């Protein structure tokens, strides 16, 4: 046993970067909502980007450590303490057995990620460790964590061990030690209003001119009925020039579909594989972390982006991520 859940938080699940290859039989991709935070948290502890982390939502858990471990926290800004002393996000932290890691309420953003060296050891189900809440499989017993659950860490790799030893030495007799270097948070998690870019969808031209204008000029608010499946928005109703019966087909993460009530829904990690509503647009991969960190009541302002620019930015971000990985290795003297 590595850690024990004292209080579970609002919705704490095991996630990785998603379950691929089974959408053709109706299985959602799932995975962390803020995939970039998942990847950076993993990098900070020397893991593969696809290793399993914990996803915390709005109110985080309290966890008792039964083992010395190397951890990192990324994503939304939660009030985090170890034995009642503040811990900073976006850096490697060595934590001693017997310590209590406690997450409070999210101060900014909606979701945070806890990575441990080696990743969380839950069974690989159809190629992924992500929790599929609706199907009740994957992750930790196919469900959210509950008080008393015990999680185990997979064996850390050699780079993780190297980093852990370094921080353990610096800790001396203290219960924890956090690295004095960090990764600047890439998505600014700011409460209030955010700009989210949109690639035009297949039915964009089928919406009335007035609706297309409102979509980009007005703001939309995140409704409390938003979850890992999708963000329901409220704002000016979007109307088609004529009603259309679409044939259901595959939908992707970031798809902005418009049901008959005219209120758009952004499909997220636990979306269904098939959908039949008109698609006004798609949030590009590069901006999905921004959406993932929005909470009910916050506002979105949509701005158009071309497919070309969306793909270019994605490629640039990939180079940036590779540079970060190398930077970490150089900083700690691994290379």
């Amino acid at each position: 046993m590595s850690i024990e859940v004292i209080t579970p938080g609002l919705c704490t699940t095991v996630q990785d970067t998603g379950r691929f290859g089974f959408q053709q039989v109706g299985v959602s991709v799932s995975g962390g909502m803020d995939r970039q935070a998942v990847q950076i948290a993993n990098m900070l502890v020397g893991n593969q980007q696809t290793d399993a982390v914990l996803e915390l939502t709005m109110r985080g858990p309290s966890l008792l450590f039964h083992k010395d471990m190397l951890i990192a926290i990324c994503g939304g800004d939660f009030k985090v303490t170890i034995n009642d002393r503040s811990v900073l996000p976006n850096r490697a932290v060595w934590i001693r057995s017997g310590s209590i890691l406690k997450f409070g309420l999210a101060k900014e953003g909606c979701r945070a990620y806890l990575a441990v060296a080696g990743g969380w050891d839950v069974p690989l189900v159809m190629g992924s460790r992500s929790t599929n809440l609706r199907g009740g499989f994957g992750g930790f017993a196919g469900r959210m964590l509950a008080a008393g659950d015990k999680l185990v860490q997979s064996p850390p790799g050699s780079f993780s061990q190297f980093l852990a030893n370094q921080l353990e030495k610096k800790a001396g007799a203290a219960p924890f030690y956090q690295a004095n270097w960090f990764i600047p948070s890439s998505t600014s998690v700011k409460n209030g209003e955010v700009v989210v870019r949109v690639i035009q969808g297949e039915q964009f031209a089928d919406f009335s001119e007035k609706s297309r204008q409102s979509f980009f000029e007005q703001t939309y608010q995140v409704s409390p009925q938003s979850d890992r499946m999708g963000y329901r928005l409220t704002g000016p109703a979007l109307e088609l020039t004529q009603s259309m019966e679409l044939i259901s087909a595959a939908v992707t993460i970031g798809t902005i579909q418009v049901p008959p009530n005219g209120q758009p829904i952004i499909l997220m990690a636990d979306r269904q594989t098939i959908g039949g509503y008109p698609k006004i647009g798609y949030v590009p991969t590069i901006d999905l972390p921004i959406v993932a960190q929005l909470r009910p009541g916050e506002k979105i302002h949509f701005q158009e982006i071309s497919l070309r620019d969306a793909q270019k930015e994605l490629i640039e971000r990939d180079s940036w991520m590779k540079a970060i990985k190398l930077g970490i290795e150089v900083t700690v003297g691994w290379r």
Partner: protein
Amino acid sequence: MWQCRYSKMEGKTLPRYEFSPLGDSGVMVKLGEVIDQQTHEKVILFSEYLQEHPFPGMIESVPGFTTVTVYYDPITLFDPLDDILPYDRTVAILEQMSQQISSTHSKEYRLVEIPVCYGGSFGPDLEVVAKQNGLSIEEVISIHSTTEYLVYMIGFAPGFPYLGGMDERLATPRRSSPRLSIPMGSVGIGGLQTGIYSIESPGGWQIIGRTPLRLFQAGESSPSLLCAGDKVRFRPISEREYDNGEKV
């Protein structure tokens, strides 16, 4: 990637496909305008080809009624030596593939028999369907279980089949207020469609029976009992056979 077993099709040439972006990591390939057998065969043929010839950067493909959607990784499909958009490169690959598919559809397919215990506590709405259509309960069961259905696609929930071919004599509107929870394996009718709830879920279909078969088993090498392109036939069984977990 796990693969569905598709029936072999040979000797048919596909017409040109229509491509459109689905976000920044997907291409939707449209193979027809209406839901029919001919378009369905094209969809299955193309899906089968993609499964057998995945290209570098391809993540997975999802067959629909009239479309096949291909998910890809823009990073892998980007070459710093040229300025070709990953989307354009993917479309070019798929276009080339379309020219290589030339075969005739042999009428082979997989027929899956699904035992159903009709009526009683397993099918609380069987009577509603009968009354609505002026049929006896026996007639409803007989019509429902003598039809051969086509699995157009799997979606909505893990292992949930979209079946085509229900007899119009059984068409029944959905319940005015949906049930909060319908047990796994329930067989229902909603409008002109029939189907099976692959997992427990809320729903508004008229429930006429239940199968003891599991349509979806997470973690199995083939997690879904059915695949797009299969044919399905329902076989009436008794409550006792249901309890014995009647297998295909």
